C-alpha cells in the first residue's frame, strides 16, 4: 500500500499508491469530474467502486495498446498509466457538447424518431453529425500486440464469487475433498468483508484457502469475471492477466454443480440532479474513504431509504477531517442497530426527509432537503440547504442474479425489499448469500452452511460440523422504497437520472409510457435505459420501480428484461483467442506440397486445402502458364496432384445397396476391380456431389468426392446411415489424408507407367478404362485407377501418403523425355471444360438436376429409389424449359467471357430478361480459341442460337453449342 505510483489523467500527472484503482487514485487527488454523459454531456464523476460503474469510463493508454470505455473503478493503477476522458471536446472541463444539456428539453427520449425527416433524403447528413456526437471512446487503430488464451477446466463445483459466502462455501467444500474452483472478479478475495472492521473471519478463510490453492483439487482464479452461464453448466470466465505477452484468458468451465455467490449491487435513488460529480453510492463512498483519504472532502451528507447507509455515516464520523452533516432518511424512523448507533454518536438524522435537489455544476457543493408528506409523494414544508462535498446515496440492494437468470432460472419478486431473487433453478446450481437476497452477515453464514451441507449430501459427503462459523447479529430495520423522490419543481423540469451513461431520466420513462410504449422491452428500447456499457446494473431496478409507480402495474407483473451475456463486456481478442492469423483455419496441404512451393507454384484455396493453381516459369502470367500446361498434357504428359479429392472407404454387408441409395445410378452389378462415376443428389433432387467409386471387393468400395465437399458428403452419408437406414450394415471411413493421388495424363501416360512398373501389362486390354489394379512400384503398394478427367489416357496412382512425394519426384525423373509437366487446378479446369465435364459447385449451384446437365443417362430408371428421386420427378423439376448445360462460343475467338456473366437473347434497356449464365470460361490452347460452359434456359434445344453476354461496356455475341469441344467420341482415351 505504500508504494507510490504516478499516472496521468487527461495529460496531467498525479500520484497514487499501489492497490489503488484509477478511480480511488483520482479521488485521492481530489479529482471527481472524470467523464461526460453520452447525450447531454453532463459532468460526471464515479458513482460506484466496481463493475457497475456507468460514469467513470475512460480511454486507457494510446496507440496499439489503447482500450476504449474502461471502467476507472476496476483498473488498478500502475506506473506510467495514461488515461484520457472520453466524449468531450475540446476538454473534459470545458465541453462544448454540454450545450445539449441546456437544450435538453428538446431532446427527450426518442426525439430522433420524430424529426430529421425533412428534407427527404437528408437523413444521412443529419446522421453524419449524430454519429460524430455519439460513441464514447475511440476504437484502436492498430493491430493488437497482445495474445489471448483459452483454457478449459472441469470440476465438481464451481463457486462464483469470493465474498464471504463464496469463501465459506469453498472452505466447506474443499474439506470434503471435492474438485473445487472458486472465481473472484477482483484481484483480492473478500468482497464486502474487506470493508468491515469488526468481522475478521474472512481473513482466516482467505489464508486457509490461499494455502490450499492449486493443491488437493482446489483452485482459486482471481481477477476473473464469470460472464456467461450457458446450458449444461457450461460457464465462461475472462481472466485479466496483464503480463507482457498474454493479456487475458477465457476459462471454459464445465462444473457438476455451480454455487453462485455473486453478491449484490447497491441501488441509487432517483432525485432531481442526482448525477453530479461527488454523488456516490453510500457503500462505495465508504470503500473509498476506508481505502484512501479524499482530498477536499470536508462535509458529507447521506441520503438513504435503509439502514445500511448508516455504516457509511459511522465510518465517516470517525474520520477526523470529515464532518457528517446529516443523514437524510425517507423513513419515519428506524430501530436498526446501525441507525441507533449513529444517533448515539450524535449524527444528525432527518427522518421523513429527502434530498430534493443538488447544486454544483462540476462538483456537488450543497443539497436541498425537504420534509415529505405522509405518502412520500410530495415535498412539504420549507426546504433547507445543506452544504457538502460528498453526497452518499443508498436506495437498498439488488441481488446480482445475472448468472442465475442467464442459466434460465426463474426469479421471484420479494415485495418487502423490492428485490428479484432466485426462485426455481433450471440447471444444477444454488445461489447463496446476497445474490440470493440474504444480506445480513450471520444469516449469510447460516444459509451457506445449511445449503452446502445439503449439496455435500448430493455428492455423498458429510459436512464438517467443526467448520461452523457465526457472526454477531445486526438488526436492520425495513427499507422503504421510494422510486421517484418528490421534487418541488414541475416533473417536466426535473433531471432525475435513471440510466446515467445514456442520460435517461424518470421523465423520459414517463414519456415512453404516455406514448404507449408500455412493455418493459419497449420502454428499454425507446428510452435506451439499461443499454449503456454498464447494462443497467444500477439503473434497471429503478427504471422498473418508476414504470410500476407511473403505470400502476405491480413490478412482478412487469417482469425484468432478459439478462444476457456477458455480465461485463468481454474483449473480442479474448474471445478469438489464438484462432486468428496463422491459426484462423487449418491449412491442409498434400504430401507433395513442398515440391509445388519449391517449383514456384501459385496456390488457390479450395475449402481448407491449398491447391497448386498454376506453375509459372520465369515471367509467365497465368494465361501463358496455363496454356503451356494444357498443351503439354494433350501432347506429352501432364501430372496433377489430386490428393485433395475426398476419399471415403465404404465397407460392409450392404455397401452396394448403400451406394444404390446415395447415387443416382446402379451399383450392384459393378464388377470387382471396376470403377464407376456417380452423381449424388440432395433430397431436393439437385446435384450435390460427384466422383468415381471403385469396387475393391464384394463388400468394399472406395468413393471419391469433390475436394470442397468431402467433409459435408461424409457427414451427410453418416446422417443417412445413422438416422434413416440403421438397418444397413455399412461402415464409412474417411481416408482422404491416408493416400496421395497422382494423376498422370496424356498420350505418353502408358509409357511412363511402363517405366514406373516395367513388369506390369498396361495394355488397354489388360487394363481398360474405368478399372483399377493393385500394383507395386518399388515395393510400395499402389492402387492405380484408369479414369480420366481430362479426356486423355490417364492413370491415377493412389499411394500411401508418406510415399507421395517420392513417387511424384520419381515420375519427373522418368517422365522427362515425354516433357512431363505439372499442371494446376486452372489447367485442370480448362482440360475438363474442353471435354464438357462438369465441376460440382461451378456448373451446379444447388438448383441443377442431372437432367439439366443432359446426364439423364446416369439416372437409373429401374432402381426402386435413391436420394432425391421423388423430388427429381416433380412436375417443375422435369420441365423441359429449365436451364440446361450447354457450350458457348464467342463470335470473337479471342474474347474470353467472364465467369458469372449473364446471358440474354435480346439486348434491351435494363431490366433485361436473362436466360442463363456462364459457369466456366477459358482460353483453350488446343482449339486456339475461347470456350465456355453455361446454363441456358431450354439450351439443349437452342444449340446454334446466337445470344449475348451484356457487359457493362459492351454486349458480347455468343453461340450456343454442344458442351464437348474436343474428342467427342473419346478416341484419345484408347489411343
Amino acid at each position, binding site marked *: 500500500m505504500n508504494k507510490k505510483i504516478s499516472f496521468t489523467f487527461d495529460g496531467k500527472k498525479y500520484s497514487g499508491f499501489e492497490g489503488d484503482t484509477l478511480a480511488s487514485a483520482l479521488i485521492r487527488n481530489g479529482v471527481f469530474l472524470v467523464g461526460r454523459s453520452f447525450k447531454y454531456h453532463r459532468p460526471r464523476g464515479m458513482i460506484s467502486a466496481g463493475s457497475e460503474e456507468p460514469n467513470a469510463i475512460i480511454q486507457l493508454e494510446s496507440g496499439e495498446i489503447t482500450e476504449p470505455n474502461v471502467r476507472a473503478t476496476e483498473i488498478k493503477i500502475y506506473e506510467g498509466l495514461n488515461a484520457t476522458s472520453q466524449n468531450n471536446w475540446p476538454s473534459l472541463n470545458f465541453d462544448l457538447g454540454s450545450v445539449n444539456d441546456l437544450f435538453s428539453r428538446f431532446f427527450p427520449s426518442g426525439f430522433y424518431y420524430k424529426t430529421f425527416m425533412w428534407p427527404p433524403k437528408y437523413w444521412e447528413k443529419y446522421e453524419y453529425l449524430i454519429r460524430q456526437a455519439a460513441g464514447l471512446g475511440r476504437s484502436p487503430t*492498430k493491430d493488437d500486440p497482445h495474445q489471448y488464451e483459452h483454457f478449459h477446466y472441469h470440476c465438481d463445483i464451481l463457486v462464483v464469487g469470493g465474498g464471504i459466502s463464496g469463501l465459506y462455501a469453498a472452505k466447506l467444500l474443499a474439506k470434503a475433498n471435492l474438485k473445487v474452483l472458486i472465481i473472484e472478479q477482483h484481484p483480492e478475495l473478500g468482497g464486502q468483508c474487506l470493508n468491515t472492521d469488526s468481522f475478521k473471519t474472512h481473513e482466516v478463510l482467505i489464508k486457509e484457502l490461499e494455502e490450499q490453492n492449486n493443491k488437493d483439487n482446489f483452485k482459486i482464479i482471481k481477477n476473473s469475471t464469470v460472464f456467461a452461464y450457458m446450458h449444461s453448466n457450461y460457464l465462461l470466465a475472462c481472466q485479466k492477466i496483464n503480463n507482457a505477452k498474454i493479456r487475458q484468458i477465457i476459462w471454459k468451465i464445465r462444473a457438476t454443480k455451480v454455487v453462485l455467490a455473486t453478491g449484490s449491487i447497491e441501488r441509487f435513488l432517483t432525485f432531481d440532479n442526482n448525477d453530479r460529480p461527488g454523488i456516490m453510492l453510500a457503500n462505495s463512498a465508504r470503500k473509498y474513504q476506508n481505502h484512501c483519504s479524499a482530498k477536499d472532502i470536508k462535509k458529507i451528507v447521506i441520503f438513504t431509504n435503509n439502514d445500511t447507509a448508516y455504516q457509511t455515516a459511522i465510518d465517516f464520523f470517525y474520520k477526523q477531517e470529515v464532518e457528517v452533516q446529516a443523514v437524510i432518511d425517507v423513513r419515519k424512523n428506524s430501530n436498526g442497530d446501525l441507525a441507533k448507533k449513529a444517533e448515539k454518536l450524535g449524527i444528525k438524522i432527518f427522518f421523513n426527509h429527502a434530498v430534493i435537489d443538488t447544486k454544483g455544476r462540476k462538483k456537488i457543493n450543497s443539497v436541498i432537503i425537504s420534509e415529505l408528506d405522509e405518502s412520500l409523494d410530495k415535498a412539504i414544508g420549507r426546504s433547507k440547504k445543506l452544504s457538502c462535498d460528498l453526497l452518499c446515496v443508498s436506495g437498498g440492494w439488488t441481488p446480482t442474479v445475472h448468472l442465475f437468470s442467464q442459466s434460465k432460472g426463474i426469479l421471484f419478486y420479494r415485495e418487502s425489499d423490492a428485490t428479484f431473487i432466485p426462485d426455481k433453478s433450471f440447471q444444477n446450481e444454488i445461489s447463496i448469500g446476497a445474490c440470493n437476497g440474504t444480506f445480513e452477515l450471520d444469516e449469510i453464514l447460516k444459509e451457506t452452511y445449511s445449503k452446502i451441507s445439503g449439496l455435500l449430501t448430493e455428492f455423498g459427503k458429510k459436512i464438517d460440523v467443526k467448520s461452523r462459523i457465526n457472526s454477531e447479529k445486526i438488526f436492520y430495520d425495513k427499507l422503504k422504497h421510494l422510486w421517484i423522490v418528490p421534487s418541488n419543481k414541475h416533473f417536466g423540469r426535473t433531471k432525475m437520472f435513471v440510466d446515467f451513461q445514456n442520460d435517461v431520466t424518470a421523465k423520459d420513462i414517463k414519456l415512453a409510457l404516455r406514448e404507449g410504449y408500455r412493455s418493459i422491452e419497449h420502454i428499454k428500447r425507446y428510452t435506451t435505459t439499461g443499454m449503456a456499457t454498464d447494462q443497467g446494473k444500477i439503473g434497471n431496478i429503478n427504471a422498473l420501480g418508476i414504470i410500476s409507480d407511473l403505470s400502476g402495474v405491480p413490478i412482478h407483473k412487469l417482469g425484468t428484461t432478459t439478462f444476457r451475456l456477458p455480465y461485463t463486456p468481454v474483449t473480442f481478442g479474448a474471445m478469438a483467442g489464438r484462432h486468428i492469423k496463422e491459426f484462423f483455419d487449418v491449412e491442409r496441404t498434400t504430401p507433395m506440397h513442398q515440391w509445388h512451393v519449391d517449383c514456384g507454384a501459385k496456390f488457390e484455396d479450395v475449402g481448407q486445402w491449398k491447391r497448386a493453381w498454376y506453375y509459372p516459369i520465369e515471367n509467365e502470367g497465368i494465361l501463358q502458364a496455363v496454356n503451356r500446361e494444357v498443351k503439354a498434357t494433350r501432347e506429352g504428359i501432364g501430372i496433377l496432384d489430386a490428393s485433395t479429392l475426398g476419399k471415403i472407404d465404404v465397407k460392409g454387408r450392404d455397401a452396394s445397396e448403400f451406394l444404390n441409395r446415395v447415387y443416382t445410378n446402379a451399383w450392384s452389378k459393378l464388377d470387382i476391380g471396376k470403377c464407376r462415376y456417380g452423381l449424388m443428389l440432395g433430397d431436393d433432387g439437385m446435384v450435390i456431389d460427384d466422383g468415381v467409386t471403385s469396387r475393391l471387393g464384394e463388400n468394399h468400395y472406395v468413393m471419391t468426392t469433390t475436394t470442397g465437399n468431402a467433409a459435408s458428403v461424409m457427414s451427410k452419408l453418416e446422417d443417412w446411415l445413422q438416422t434413416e437406414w440403421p438397418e444397413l450394415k455399412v461402415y464409412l471411413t474417411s481416408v482422404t489424408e491416408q493416400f496421395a493421388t497422382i494423376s498422370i495424363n496424356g498420350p505418353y501416360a502408358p509409357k511412363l507407367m511402363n517405366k514406373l512398373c516395367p513388369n506390369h501389362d498396361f495394355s488397354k486390354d489388360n487394363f481398360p478404362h474405368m478399372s483399377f489394379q493393385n500394383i507395386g512400384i518399388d515395393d510400395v503398394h499402389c492402387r492405380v485407377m484408369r479414369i480420366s478427367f481430362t479426356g486423355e489416357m490417364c492413370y491415377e496412382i493412389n499411394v500411401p501418403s508418406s510415399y507421395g512425394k517420392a513417387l511424384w519426384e520419381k515420375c519427373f525423373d522418368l517422365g522427362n523425355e515425354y516433357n512431363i509437366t505439372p499442371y494446376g487446378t486452372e489447367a485442370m479446369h480448362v482440360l475438363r471444360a474442353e471435354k464438357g465435364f462438369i465441376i460440382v459447385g461451378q456448373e451446379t449451384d444447388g438448383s441443377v438436376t442431372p437432367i439439366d446437365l443432359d446426364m439423364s443417362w446416369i439416372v437409373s430408371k429401374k432402381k426402386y429409389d435413391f436420394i432425391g428421386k421423388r423430388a427429381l420427378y416433380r412436375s417443375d423439376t422435369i420441365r423441359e424449359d429449365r436451364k440446361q448445360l450447354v457450350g458457348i462460343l464467342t463470335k470473337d475467338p479471342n474474347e474470353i467471357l467472364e465467369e458469372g456473366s449473364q446471358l440474354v437473347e435480346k439486348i434491351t434497356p435494363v431490366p433485361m430478361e436473362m436466360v442463363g449464365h456462364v459457369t466456366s470460361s477459358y482460353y483453350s490452347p488446343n482449339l486456339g480459341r475461347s470456350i465456355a460452359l453455361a446454363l441456358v434456359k431450354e439450351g439443349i434445344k437452342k444449340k446454334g442460337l446466337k445470344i449475348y453476354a451484356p457487359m457493362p461496356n459492351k454486349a458480347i455475341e455468343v453461340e450456343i453449342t454442344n458442351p464437348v469441344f474436343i474428342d467427342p467420341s473419346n478416341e484419345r482415351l484408347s489411343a
Partner: protein
Amino acid sequence: MHKKPKKYSIFSLIKNAFSYHENWQPVWRSPEPKNNYDAIIIGGGGHGLTTAYYLAKNHGLTNIAVIEKGWIGGGNTGRNTTIIRSNYLWDQSAALYEHALKLWEGMSQELNYNVMFSQRGVMNVAHTLHDVRELKRRWHANRLNDIDCEWLNTKEVKEFCPIINISPNIRYPVMGATLQRRGGTARHDAVAWGYARGADAMGVDIIQNCEVTSLNVNNGQVIGIETTRGSIKSKKIGVVAAGHSSVIANMVGIRLPLESRPLQALVSEPVKPVIDTVVMSNTIHAYVSQSDKGELVIGAGTDGYTSYTQRGGFNIVEDTITAVVELFPLFSRMKMLRHWGGIVDICPDASPIISKTHINGLYFNCGWGTGGFKATPGSGWVFAHTIANDEPHKLNVPFTINRFSSGELVDEHGAAAVAH
C-alpha cells in the same frame, strides 16, 4: 373514426418541449379486441404490422386487427442486425427485395416516423476464386435486373472501407467485393413502431399480450380464432408468426416445410465512428456494421440445430468474433457488450412462403430465414395484396407454398459446394 395522429416534426418537438412533452399522444392505442374483423393478422412483428398497414392503405380494409402474443416487434424485428439490401441472385428474389428497398427509401416520410434508413452501402467480400465467380455472377444479374451493384477489386475495397485487412497473407485474403450503395441499415424497432402508428391511425386494432390458441375452420373456410382474450371472428386470417407459423399451421393440420434455428448476434461497446458501411463475408462467416450509437453490430450464420430457445452455442459467437478480428485486426481490443439470440424460420430453399393455402381465407407469410428484416415493407405490401384479393401479387407468385411439391424452388442457398 380515429383522430389523425399529430405530425412529428422539429416544430412539434419544439412545441411540445414547452409543455414538458406532456401532450404527446400514444403512438398506438391498446384497444380491447372486437368480436369480428374483416381480417386478422396473427403476429405483430414488422411483417405483420406492414401487412396490416398496407391492407388499410392500399386496399381500404380498416376493420382489421393485429394479434400479438407478446409485445410488437419483439421477435426477429427487434433482434436482427438491421442490414438492408436487394442484391439477390435470382430474379424472383431480386424483384421482391428491390420492391422492399424502394419502400425503405421513402419509409420515414411515408410513416412520418424516422426509421433512420441509412444507405451506407453493403459490401459482400470474396475470399476465394469460387467466391469471386459467385459474386460476379450476382453482380451481373443485379446489373441486368436494374439493381445497383458494383464490383470492387481489392484496392477499391480498401478505399471504400479503409480499416479492412487486405493483406495477401491472411488465411482467406480479400479478393474483391460487390457493393450495393443503396443498401444499408435502419433502426429496427422504429420500423415496427412506425408501421404500428401508421396502421393504428387508419383504424387497425393492435392487440398485444394476446395469444392465439386455435383456428376455427368450417367447411374449408376459416371463420375465426380463439385467443387468450376470447374468440374473434374473421373470414380472412393472415399468419405472420415466423417460426411459430408452424405451430399455428398445425392447428389446422397443415405442415409447413420450416426449420427453426437459433441465430445469434451481438454488439460491441459504443465507440466514435470507425466503419462507415456494412461488410459481409460468407466465407469466413461474419458481418459487421456500426450503429448510429457507435456500437459495432455483428452477426453470422445460424446454429446447426433446430430450437425455439432464443440462445445458441457460444462456439458460434466465438467463431464470429474470430472472423471479425481476422478481417479487422484493430477490433481486437474492442469489447462485446451485449449478445442475443433469435429464432429464424428457414425453408429448404432459403426463400420465404407468401401464400394462400387450401383453406379459404387462410394465408401464410413465413420462412424468411436470416433475411426477413430487409424485406419487411415489401413483404407486407404483397401479403396485403394476397389477403385482400385472395390472389397473390405478381411479386409473390413464385413464393407459393406449392413450390415444394412442384419443385419450382427459388434456391437462395446457392451451392454450398466449392470447386474441385
